[in-house]
């Protein structure tokens, strides 16, 4: 039995939603960061599924671009988090509240 492509898309959408939910609601900086990565990987899954469904290699190539970009984001993001951690010794975003809209 083959699983239809749309199932992968649904899983990807769920993962993306989960990631978005995590970024917006979680207070732990590391978890927020992980949620962000989850969103990016959900997109990757979408790309791959579509590439398979459309029988087009372009979508698979796009995934590589996304991976590279995600890696670059990790470098900068962790750098900022480490800088905060050094000063505060905490990674909870609630402590980062001096700025208010």
């Amino acid at each position, binding site marked *: 039995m083959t699983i239809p492509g749309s199932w992968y898309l649904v899983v990807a959408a769920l993962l993306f939603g989960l990631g978005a939910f995590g970024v917006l609601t979680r207070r732990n900086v590391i978890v927020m960061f992980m949620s962000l990565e989850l969103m990016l990987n959900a997109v990757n899954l*979408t790309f791959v599924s579509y590439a398979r469904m459309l029988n087009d290699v372009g979508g698979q190539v796009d995934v590589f671009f996304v991976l590279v970009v995600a890696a670059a984001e990790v470098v900068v993001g962790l750098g900022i988090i480490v800088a905060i951690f050094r000063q505060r010794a905490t990674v909870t975003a609630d402590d980062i509240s001096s700025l208010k809209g």
Partner: protein
Amino acid sequence: MIFANVLSQLPIALPAISYKAVAPELVLFGGALLILLVSATVGKRELPGLYRAIALVAALAEGGFSGYQLYLAQGAKASLAVAGAIAYDGFSAFAGIVVAAILLLAILIGPGFIKRIAGDGPEFLVLMLISAMGATVMAQGEDLIVIFIGLEILSIALYVMVGYRIGDGLAREAAFKYFILGGFSSAIFLYGIALVYGATGTTNLAKIGAFLALNVLTHDGVLLFGLALLLLGFGFKVSAVPFHLWSPDVYQGAPTSVTGYMAAMAKVGAFAALIRVFDIAFAGQIVQWRPIVVGLAILSMVFGALFALRQRELKKILAYSSINHAGFILLGVYAGTAAAISNTLFYLIAYAVIVVGTFGLVSIVQDSIGVSEGSCSLDQLRGLARSRPALATVTAIMVLAQAGAPFTTGFLAKFSIIVSVVEIREYWVAVVAMLSAAIAVAFYLRIVLAMFRGEPEEVEGERVLAIQGAATEAPARRQALAWIGVSLSLVFTVGFGIFPQPLLDLAARAHIVG
């Protein structure tokens, strides 16, 4: 064996690269690499003069190449290069000129002040050049993935620049907030790309346009959802209401020179891409996206102006002002005619120069009162008109130019957008836009009034000390280059405000053909 087999099966052909097309990016990147190389090979790390010189040359060369492209492109259809992933046409060339203008001013203004908080290392200029390269990639991207990569090059460099005052709590938080929400919006944007890819089978804008022109989608839900996500991502990047929540904090927390640079560069990149994606590739879907864009525009204009009224912090006020401006620029995208796109480009260059100049002046003011690059309350401006009349006057002119005062490019920019909106006969939108400008003027005037009100001697002892402390460090020398930058932006703003025809002609050449 397997590798060769795969290569022969996959339809991958290495594209021919037109170096003429990507010259602006190459020059900027080359400049950045050269600065890094020099700093690594020459034993001394701090060579501010040399770094600045290299960066300036790179910026000027980028502007030159873009100008050459604009000269070549007039009247011609967009030329595609690098397997159709990069477009170079009048539009991207004009955007390249805007990028060069921002870079030029920011290089003159910024480093002298950044030096006081982070020394004279090469990194700041390198980040600046790389982020500018990201903006040019966005302007030239003819493929959604290329636009995404440009967006990320721009954004990641900006995340670092925003966090430059790492010793300061506000700055760290601003950097983190900018990073998380920036990454969030990038992910949304990317998901939009994936859905558009799923609906049309390609990420190339030209092919998407061709596909949509030939096929009628029976189920266009995926495409429309993808479009909505793309708009959402752009909305975050240009800080349109209701996706603006990050920007006041980031504007306040970032070093002032970076704030001005970011406000200008991020908008140029994002709007250039926005216009190319929506006004060109998805021109056929205009009925679907237009209501959303006009909604975002009106919300941004009205709420940007209203929220600014209750702020007391100068950089936050300017953040809301930039939200208001974003609303106006979105109106140009909304109008979407060829003339409207030219007018939008005119708005972008006018806004970019004014905003970099304004924040440069804020830097100078802050430098003079000893709060280097941090946040700045309106009270700190008291009595400026009497202690430094020339500085106050120039600041007043630039702030009023943001408000759209007559005889500045700020006025003509707003005027040209109103013209574009009236041209498509959306009179009520034009009225709302002008009324929002009326509200916005109230807070711009508060800034100017703060400077013209009060006596310098009312200042508390602390600040007087700060002024003296700054004086011993010879601020005149530090500020000299910044003054050149600010003067350039002033001359541009007032000069083209009175005689705008050459600039309008240039923007008119930058028309874009689908």
